[in-house]
Structures are given as C-alpha cells and as structure tokens.
C-alpha cells in the first residue's frame, strides 16, 4: 500500500462548485474530500446528476461554463492549484492530470485524424521532439491496445468502433504521461464485451503506476478495480472507504439502495427497490395460451451504398399470455426490428407472425388499428413518443379517445391509470418535459395500460434510467403483470435486467437467434459461445468480495 509519508498526487478537501452568479447561483458539489496516490484507484459512484463529472472536471480547472470552484485544499502533486494561473493550468491539463471525458463517442473531434488529436497533447507538452511524434503516436496507440496503430492513426473517429474510439481517447489523455488519469464513465455506451476490455486496459495502467480516478454510475464496473469508493448523492459524499467495505457492507441507506437495485444480483420475482411494497404473488401462468407467434422471420433493409442488410434472419418465437419473453443482444443485432415485426409494424420479408392464430397480414386496416390498441409499445425514450404539445393527461387519454371513450369518463380513467403506475393524478396537467425520466416512463406505461393490453412491447424501457429508478420501473412492470396478467416482450442489451424480468429469453447476434430457451437454462448453462462471451464480460458486483483479478460469473 501507499507509504504514509509520500505526498498524494491529488489532495482535495471541501471542494465546492457553484454554477451561475448572484441569485441564479446554484451549488452542485458540496464539499467533496479525497486523496489519490500513485498506483491507486479511487472510484466515485452515484446516480445521474450527483456531481461526479463536475468534481472530476474541477480537478483540471474545467468545471464548466459559468462554474466557480472553492476548496479548502486543492493540491495537485503537492502544489496549491487554487493559485494556478490559466497558464499553469494548461501545463497541468494533460501533463499532470489526464482526462477521459464522459462522452467517449463525442470526445474526439470528428473532423480530425486520431493522430492529430494525440499529437496536440504531445506538442503542447513538448513531450518528444517533433520528429519523434509520429512514432510516439503509434506507441501510444499500441499501448492502449489499438491494433494496427499505423493505420488507425490516420483514420477519423467515425471510422473506428466504439471500443477503439474509447482507447484512442485514453491514448490522447495519457500521451504526455500524466501521473493521474481521470476517467469519467469510460465504459458507458460500450457493449459488455468491449467494456471488459477497456476496464482491463485501465487496470493495467494502474498496475503500471498511474493514479486513477474512476467515475461510474455502475457499481459492478467500479467493484472490479477500485481500491477506494466514494458514493455521491446530490453533490455530497454520503459514504467512502475501501471498495470491499463499501460494496460488501454498505452503511449508508443510499448505498444500500444502490446495491440492492442492481438487477443481476437478484432472482426473478424479487423486489429491486428497497422501499417498495412486497410483491403480489404472481399467478403461475406458465402454460398460458400463445398470443403472438412468429415463424422464421426475415427482414432485409437496403443500405445507402446500394447493398442490403439482413436485420432479422430466421427468428421464431411464441409469446404466451402473462409471460415475459426477453430479447438480448448487442446494439444492431436486430432486437427492435424483431419486436416491431412481432407487433405488426412493418411487413416481414419472410416468415409470418400470427395473433391468436391469424396472421397480421390477414387483418383489414381497420381491424389492425383496433387490434394494435391491445398490443402497445413502451419505448426507451418515452419523451420522444409523446407529442411535444400534449400534457401528461392528454397523452394518457389519447388511446381512450381513439377508442371513443367519452370525455368525462376519460378524465376519470386517466386519474386511475396514473395512480396505477404510481403517479400523482395532479401531474396530468403538466407537460412530460417537466417530469423526471422515471416519471415519464411511468406515463408511457400508463398509456400502454389504457386499453387492457394483452402484450406490451418494452424496448429498452429502463436503459436510460439510473439503477434506483430502473429498479422502481422494473418492479412496477412486475406488479402489473402479476395483477393484470399482461405479457411482455422485453428488449434490452443489459443481461442482468433481462435475466431478472424474463421467463424465456432469445439471444440475438447479427439478426439471428443464437440461443433461445428458459431464462435459467440459458443463463446458467449457455451453449452458444457468443452467449458465453456475453455472460463472461458482465461485471458483477460480487467480484471484489472474491478479489478475483478478472471478472468471472458467480454461480
């Protein structure tokens, strides 16, 4: 461990960040303190908006436009950063502290080559002579695990995959060999397999002596490499300590809630939100009749360059009343397309889908419209699925209006539906944009419930939400299924979530189903190598408890 006498690379006490001036001033970070030494990894976790990114950026003097930073102590490598001039800050940035920004995909200039971005850092800090720069760029890219660095260096960001882009970004941050690397959500937006590789890379840098400040909202990610963890909520650190202790034995209620909310840690049917009422017992409907059935579905899209892309290829499945079918797979694997075909939006290029034994295609348009009302969709981004001009009440009432429910009756039903999804009926007067993400998703669910749905298509319904909110929504969906007997087709790229909610699961890759079956069978005894690799890559919370150097799936 760190020798006691050595000066920490970062020493922060009572860091406060305020945005705006005068009456508009708002403090968003209220007194954060921590230290960071070489070869150490400190992680900051917390829900969205808790001030993690602002804290991180403040360490480079880049709190944000309109931000003011106060601190009892802000030492960088023993120097008081509060007295730094802008000039001195520029030396710190990249030179002493490297920053990997939260939005990996947007953090490289799309119009400049990768090499140019790395060279910027080399030039600014005069790390190597101009002649040596190309060589150094290649070395850096190789060091972060980019294959064919010579080729990649001359490419533009859009020509790289998400994982490569994240690596290139890390290369720009470590180009001038800073002692500290601040990595803000370096793995969000990456597929699980790539996520694991990037975490390995960071761990290797740490082992090589770099001090790492890791920021994430994902406890499982943090648990893999953090020595110490800070849990933030509303701009304050509510708990901190060695990772193992904080995650293994959370003291603060908020931390406990965060941990409990991670779905993969919990078996199907259990509650995710701690403050929720106990689950109603779920009627066993495993033998429910088949409502939707797809056979050998195919969908081909024309690509702009004149070719074609088979988005869905030979998918067959059946949805039974009151049951949940989960669909997992990485981005672009055809999950959404499958869902849409199943629900009768768009015609398949091959195969059939039938509702109660009769194909979608055999229904007249009027019948289809009526039928669709019983098969509603809940999207990932509920706000986008609401008419921006509509209030919450009008949004929820719209299906009722289509069905010809008279106005007073509608108002009563809207209140009832909002109550059912746990929203105050008074919210009906508001606009969806005035609600939080979780509330909006509840509105979308309320709208889906309006006309006694039989199957609801949930397309990544919780992917944009914080774990704690995510937990509430998943619980709500489970409750509704138990009480109303609704079936779900549940699409997600998050294996934990799918495992938690599904009875049956489809694993998709490149438009094909690689594995399909009972959720426990698939997750416990994966047959297909792709499923195995997916499951292997999932970071799980219990990793630090077992002090495993690499992630492994718990039994």
């Amino acid at each position, binding site marked *: 461990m760190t020798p006691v006498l050595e000066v920490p690379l970062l020493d922060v006490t009572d860091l406060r960040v305020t945005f705006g001036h005068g009456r508009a001033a708002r403090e968003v970070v209220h007194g954060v303190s921590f230290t960071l030494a070489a070869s150490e990894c400190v992680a900051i976790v917390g829900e969205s908006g808790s001030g993690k990114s602002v804290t991180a*950026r403040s360490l*480079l003097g*880049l709190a944000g*436009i309109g931000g003011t930073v106060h601190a009892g102590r802000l030492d960088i490598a023993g120097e008081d950063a509060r007295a730094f001039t802008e000039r001195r800050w*520029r*030396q*710190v*940035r*990249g*030179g002493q502290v*490297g*920053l990997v*920004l*939260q*939005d990996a995909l*947007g*953090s*490289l*200039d*799309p*119009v*400049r*080559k990768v090499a*140019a*971005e790395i060279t*910027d*850092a080399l030039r*600014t*800090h005069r790390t190597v002579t101009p002649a040596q720069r190309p060589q150094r760029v290649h070395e850096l890219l190789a060091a972060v695990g980019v294959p064919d660095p010579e080729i990649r260096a001359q490419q*533009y960001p*859009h*020509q790289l995959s998400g994982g490569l882009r994240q690596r290139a*970004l890390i290369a*720009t*941050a470590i*180009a*001038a060999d800073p002692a500290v690397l601040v990595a803000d959500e370096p793995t969000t937006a990456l597929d699980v397999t790539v996520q694991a590789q990037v975490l390995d890379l960071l761990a290797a840098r740490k082992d090589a002596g770099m001090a790492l400040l890791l920021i994430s909202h994902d406890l499982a990610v943090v648990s893999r490499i953090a020595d110490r963890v800070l849990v933030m909520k509303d701009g304050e650190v509510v708990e901190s300590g060695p990772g193992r202790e904080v995650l293994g034995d959370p003291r603060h209620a908020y931390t406990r809630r965060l941990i409990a909310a991670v779905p993969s840690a919990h078996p199907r049917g259990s509650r995710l939100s701690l403050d929720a009422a106990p689950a109603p017992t779920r009627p066993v409907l495993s033998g429910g009749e088949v409502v939707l059935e797809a056979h050998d579905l195919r969908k081909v899209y024309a690509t702009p360059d004149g070719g074609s892309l088979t988005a869905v290829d030979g998918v067959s499945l059946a949805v039974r009343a009151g049951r949940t079918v989960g669909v997992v797979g990485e981005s672009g694997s055809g999950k959404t397309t499958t869902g849409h075909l199943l629900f009768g939006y768009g015609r398949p290029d091959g195969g059939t889908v039938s509702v109660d034994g009769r194909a979608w295609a055999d229904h007249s348009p009027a019948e289809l419209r009526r039928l669709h009302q019983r098969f509603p969709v809940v999207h990932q981004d509920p706000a986008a699925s609401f008419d921006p001009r509509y209030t919450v009440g009008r949004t929820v009432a719209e299906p009722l209006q289509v069905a010809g429910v008279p106005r007073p009756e509608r108002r009563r039903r809207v209140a009832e539906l909002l109550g059912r999804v746990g929203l105050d009926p008074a919210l009906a007067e508001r606009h969806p944009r005035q609600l939080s993400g979780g509330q909006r998703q509840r509105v979308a669910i309320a709208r889906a419930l309006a006309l006694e749905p039989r199957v609801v298509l949930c397309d990544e319904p919780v992917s944009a939400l914080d774990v704690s909110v995510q937990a509430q929504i998943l619980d709500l969906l489970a409750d509704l299924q138990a009480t109303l007997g609704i079936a779900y087709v549940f699409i997600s790229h998050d294996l934990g979530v799918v495992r938690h909610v599904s009875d049956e699961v489809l694993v998709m890759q490149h438009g094909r189903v690689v594995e399909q079956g009972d959720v426990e069978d698939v997750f416990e005894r994966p047959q297909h190598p792709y499923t195995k690799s997916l499951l292997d890559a999932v970071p799980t919370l219990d990793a630090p408890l077992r002090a495993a150097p690499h992630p492994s799936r718990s039994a």
Partner: protein
Amino acid sequence: MTAVRRLLGGLAVVWGAVTLTFLALHLTPGSTVDAIVGQSVVTPEVRAQIVAEYGLDQPLWIQYLSYLGRLVRGDLGHSYGQGTQVAEAIGEQFGSTLLLVAVGLGLAFGGAVLVAAATAHRSRWWRGSAVGAERVSVAVPPFWLGILLLVAFSFSLRWFPAIGSDSPRGLVLPAVALAVAPAAMLSQVMRHALEKTLEEPFVTSARARGLTRTAVLARHAVRHALLPVVTLAGWLVAAFIGGAIVTETVFARQGLGRLTVTAIEGKDFPLVSGLVLVSAVAYVVVGIGVDALYGVLDPRLRAST
C-alpha cells in the same frame, strides 16, 4: 459517381432556369417579337429576320428545341437594347461584378469569422451588442445603407470616391454595402455553430490536453463553424449577385447588376435570359465547389471509408 450525379443535377438546374426564362418570354403579354426586341425600335425587316431566326412561326416546342440548340452552341441571342450579342454584353460587364462580389464575399467572410470568434461565449454585454448590431445590419435596406455610406464617407468626408469602378478605393464602399447584411447573417450562423462546437465534449477534451483557447478555436472550432457556412454558400452567392443589382445602381458602378436593371427596364428579354443563365451556372458551379469543400472540411462526408 457522385461527381457525375452532381454534374447532371447541376445541368438539370441550368436547364430548368433556361426553361423558366423561355416560358417567361412566351408568357409575356404581347407578341414574342416585341418581347425580344424590347423597347428598341427596329425595322420590319429586322422583325421578319427575328421571326425567321427564332422560328416564331413554328409550334412552341420547335421554338423551344431550337432555343436550346442555340444555347448549346453558346449563342445567347442578340440584345436589341444593347445593340450587341448577349454574350458580349454580359462578358463586358462580368469582370466588374465578379470583382465586386469577390471582394464583398471576402469582406463578409472575414468580418463574420472575426466577429463570431471574438464574441462566441463571451460576456453577455459584449455578445449582446454584437447580436444587436447584426440584427440591425440585416434589417437595414442595403440600398439605403449604400446611400448613407456615400453621403457620409464620400460626399462629406471624401475618404472614398463617389463614383467609378476602377480604383481599389472605389471598391471599398460598394463592397461594404454589399457585404454588411450577409456578413451579419454569417456571423450569427458562425457564432451559433462556434458556441455549439465549444460545448462539444471534444473541445473540453482538447482543453483537458492543455490547449489554449486560441488553439482550440483554430484547430477545432473554426472548422466546425465553417460547415454550416459552406452550406449557405450557394445562397450567399445568389444573395451577392442579387445584391449587386442594387449596389451597382447606388454606386453607379458598371456591372451585371446594372445591366440587369437596364435589361428589365428595357424589357430586353434575350439579355434577361442570358443573365438568368449566367447566375444559374454560377450557382451550380458554386454548388459543386461546395460539395468538394464539404469533403475537405468533414471527413464523415467523404464517399467511402
């Protein structure tokens, strides 16, 4: 492949503009010979010659085809108002307008870049005054601005000559009058793009590498801010050619703009058609140039990966 498509598209636009003026010529009330002759006085023999040359006794579609045929051969017709070939009349005035438009474009562009870069993300007061000035600049009628400039800087202060197309000094006021409104538009667009770019994560990322504000502006932001401007290039060129009509009149400069006014007043249709054709070609050429420029500015838009 895309270049060929682009060229064909451009040809289609030129063809459309030509057809438009052909239709305009034939929709004009009164006889077509009158429209071709405009207000100049010609003998019956000349009229007969025009009828023969343009095939005015033929069905409309044959007239149209022969009109296209002449255009393809580079024959834009005879301007009875100017007493010369249309191509010649336009050629004589082309250089002067090109110079004015080029200088105006340069001024507008340079001014807009400076103003936008100096005011993007700066204090509310500073930025607010720039926005105010830009809005006023866009709202001021250009001909009135030209007159005010003339009265102030030429008649009263005598810094610049009141008339004449030849001296560089004589170019200053017309170019300024022509450039003010487009420059204000441009700088609004550019500042918006700059500010959006400066909020992009890659800018924070670049600053986190220790780059100065100027370096960030120069290496990252300006290029992004140029993209929407390039999109406006076609519009800009059209706006400048249109603006030249008024500016050349106000400043008594020779050029295509004044030729246009003369042609319209004299109902000199062959000349008007020629001018429409020239501006359509300019628009298309600029469009093709812009497409090429896009690729240079934004690698994402280049054909293949």
